[in-house]
């Protein structure tokens, strides 16, 4: 009994709000880039704004940074109302996609840019620059110019420059998207590590779900200027609040159907779900992720088991760690079902194109969403 309580206390401490965004709207002429966005971020949290391009995530970041003020709504940072403060009077460090390193200044002068002009002794500045270079793992590059560094190195210098002044908030605007895949994966960990070490509240804008899932404490999924869902990566992935989130994050099979008695019908098969709150006969969309389609051996004689479908393998794609398999089923008609089968399962069940098998769609993994929104 004591353990959960302790955990609850930790959560409470962590959730002392640092950044409170309330009722934010942003209009560009007639176009609404942000619609009634409210959000609370705790001290030390790593938050990702995730969404397709044009969803308003960068607009939200720029409003927080005071670069493009919101049209309506308020922002409080550390208890201070910063809604109408210019950028220079807010407290944050920022890293842009372009890095925006000053090309004519050496790496150390770039990092020292925010430290100079603050009546700090020169020795202290030099020491701090060295410390930061150590922190981002580039102690040897102090005398070089940005153009002489690789993209990943430039990114780390930009990060060092942003945190040099010990800001209360770190803003990262698509910081990794200009890098190639390998460097990106590597930097993901480094940035996350650094953030944990410094404990600085961080907001990162990204359109890359993998990035968001692997780095964020909580993800804010946005679409059409609205927040679709806020939650931890597992919440977002396992329990998407809307069909848009289910679609945008990960992959999902979708079938239009109706809700009846806690189940949905697909052809002549009834799929039990754990969904609640839908009216009897409501038009819904059933969704299931490819990895939640579980293969079972052979055809099954007798009455079909609940949540089991007899299917045929139409096509298989080898994707390294798993097989992406296209299945057809009389129950689904023309709608294909995509399943990801592990190497082991394929070998064990001797699956190949043309083979028949039974798949299970577990009730707790069958997601149900109301049909007819703007997120079709």
């Amino acid at each position, binding site marked *: 009994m004591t353990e959960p309580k302790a955990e609850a206390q930790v959560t409470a401490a962590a959730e002392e709000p640092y950044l409170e965004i309330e*009722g934010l*709207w942003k*209009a560009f002429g007639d176009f*609404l880039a942000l*619609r*009634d966005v409210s959000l609370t971020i705790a001290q030390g949290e790593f938050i990702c704004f995730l969404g397709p391009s044009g969803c308003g995530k960068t607009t939200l970041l720029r409003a927080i*940074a*005071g*670069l493009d*003020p*919101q*049209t*309506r*709504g308020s922002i409080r940072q550390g208890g201070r109302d910063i*809604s*109408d*403060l*210019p*950028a*220079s*009077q*807010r407290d*944050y*460090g*920022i890293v*842009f996609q*372009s890095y*925006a390193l*000053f*090309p*004519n*200044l050496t790496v150390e002068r770039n990092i020292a*840019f*925010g430290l100079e*002009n603050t009546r700090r002794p020169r020795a202290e500045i030099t020491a701090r620059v060295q410390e930061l270079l150590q922190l981002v793992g580039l102690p040897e590059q102090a005398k070089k*110019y*940005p*153009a*002489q560094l690789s993209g990943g190195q430039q990114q780390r210098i930009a990060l060092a*420059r*942003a945190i*040099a*002044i010990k*800001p209360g908030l770190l*803003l990262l605007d698509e910081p990794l998207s200009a890098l190639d895949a390998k460097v990106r994966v590597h930097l993901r960990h480094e940035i996350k590590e650094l953030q944990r070490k410094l404990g600085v509240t961080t907001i990162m804008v990204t359109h890359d779900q993998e990035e968001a899932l692997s780095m964020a404490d909580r993800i804010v999924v946005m679409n059409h200027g*609205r927040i679709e869902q806020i939650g931890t990566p597992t919440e977002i992935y396992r329990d998407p609040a809307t069909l848009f989130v289910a679609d945008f994050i990960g992959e999902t099979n979708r079938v239009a159907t109706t809700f009846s008695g806690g189940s949905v019908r697909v052809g002549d098969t009834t799929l039990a779900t754990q969904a609640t709150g839908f009216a009897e006969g409501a038009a819904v969309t059933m969704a299931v992720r490819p990895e939640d389609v579980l293969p079972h051996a052979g055809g099954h004689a007798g009455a079909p088991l609940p949540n089991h479908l007899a299917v045929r393998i139409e096509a298989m794609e080898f994707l390294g760690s798993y097989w992406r398999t296209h299945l057809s089923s009389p129950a689904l008609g023309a709608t294909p079902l995509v399943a990801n089968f592990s190497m082991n399962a394929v070998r064990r069940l001797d699956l190949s194109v043309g083979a028949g098998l039974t798949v299970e769609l577990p009730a707790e993994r069958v997601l149900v969403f109301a049909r007819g*929104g703007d997120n079709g």
Partner: protein
Amino acid sequence: MAEAPSLPAGRAIRLRIDSDGWIKRAFMGVIALYLMVALALPLYAMLSKSFVTYSFDLARYEFQVSDESGTVWGEPVSAAALNAQLGKFSDADLASSTDGRLSVTDFFPDFSFRSPVKYRIRGVADNAPYLVGLDLRNSTEWQEFDSNTFRRINLRPVASTGLQNYTEYFSNPVLFSSIENSLYIATISTVLTVIFAFGFAYAINRSCMPFKGAFRLIAMMPILVPSLLPGIALIYMFGNQGFLKGILFGQSIYGPLGIVIGSVFFTFPHALIIISTALSISDQRQYEAAESLRASKWRTFWTVTIPGARYGLISAAFVTFTLVITDFGLPKVIGGQYNVLAIDIYKQVIGQQNFEMGAVVSVVLLIPAIVAFVVDRQVQKKQVSLLSARSVPYEPKPNRRFDMAMLAWCAAMGVFIAGIIGVCQFAALINYWPYDLSFSLRNYDFNKMDGGGWGAYWNSLELAALTAVIGTAIIFTGAYMVEKIDGFKTGRAVFQFLAMLPMAIPGMVLGLAYIFFFNNPANPLNGIYGTMAILVVSTVTHFYTVGHLTALTALKQIDAEFEPVAASLRQPFWRLFARVTVPVCLPAILDISIYMFVNAMTTVSAVVFLYSTHTALASVAVLNMDDAGDIAPAAAMGMMIFYTNATARVLHAFASRSILRRTQAWRVR
């Protein structure tokens, strides 16, 4: 999901302006104020002046004449009535200028200054000015004078506004024919220049001919000399004592012929730069496609080359047209009796002191200049979008016959350009053309000539240096504020408009506008009239736009996120400006300064109304010495400008290279 579909009512949030914001706005305000004072207000003064006419309003005056005893007075009679009686002055005679004077004795045919008759004069309207000697009176009370004083009384004209100046201008066939003449020579010069420059640019971009670098250098030489220098060379070649006069078959070089040849010379590099840029951005792939479709060279030329360069050609044509139609130096030197608009302004202002009519001609001259400017801006915008397209640059392949033909074309243009400069140099160095061809430096002894002597040269140097330094600082700072300030949209738009305006204003028009504005005793800035300061202001303003555009281009290439980063690091903008923006833009800044320097050395039109005896300038000295018949010294002074500009260019090249090596080490990977 319940949506709140529309923006809640309320006021849009506006960020508080921090000290940076205020400083930036203040800076922009100061420079905008500069442009207001140095551009907008003078132009407004000129425009309003063009609607002002001066005439003697005789109905405003009444006279009374006594008998010989000087005690018995006759009936008051108005000047208008007297004039009607005498039929002395027609309405046209009564039109006047600011300096007009009308002797009152003209209304009294029996007047004798020895007679004991006394006279009285009074105004019957509020404003009825007259002079007693030099003493201006304006009174509705009777004033009494003996006849000896009365003969020293002059009526002064009064101002009224209206379109009279314009009606007069357009009904005057001599003045009106200038419009025709200007359009005629500008059109012919434009067609010729564009054709010649296109051939030259084509040779440089599309052939494998040798000596491209040398030809490029030669082609740029005309930029370094005043536009009237080719006029002087042409006089030596084809003038009354010219050594090539024979080949004109009796045609006179003084007139349209000379103006056109000289115009082609001085506009050539301007057209060449624009067309060359347009040709250099063409796409190799289009030519490969044409070749694979077996299109003939001729067909490819008309379907690929010309359409690809069309914006450049249009732009070059308009720039050339504007340069020719607004040029004043060349028609002055070699135009003879052939009147053009720019000459008319000069004649009206300097010759006849009719400033109002000068203003009218200026307004007329503004029209083609503004049209050309607007068209050019539209075309330039389209050209930019062509430029940004990704394309494979064209690589010419050697073709002996074609390359030789191109070489011949460029050689011909090269001989023409170098020849003009060469003739001037030759003329400057010989003793007395055509009688004594021995070598002499006598023509460089400017102190023995009219026109300002060596002092004029030093003044020019001072003007060019000041213009380069002050102008570049103002222009670059202004462009920075326009480009990098956030919010404040209206202010920036107004500023941008003011910064683009000078390009559409001919130098003479600007100069005349300055007379109206700064020479007005009521203007608190009246003090700068006749000083070096007004020359610097007018030159900076005249050449503002090109510098502004150069600065904008450079600033646009800088990452827009530098300012947000600096702000997030809580650094003031001026630190970013000094540490990053200026160093990164240094190449552009040097380009602006050399542009200002060279143009300040060569300009005549922007300063011809504004120099005073102690601020005479080299370029104006060329004009005045030529006017006085000292053609050889004029050529020598022209060559001094050439040497100076050439040296400045070389120094600029060296300076850029060494500064770039030091401050732009980051450019090298």
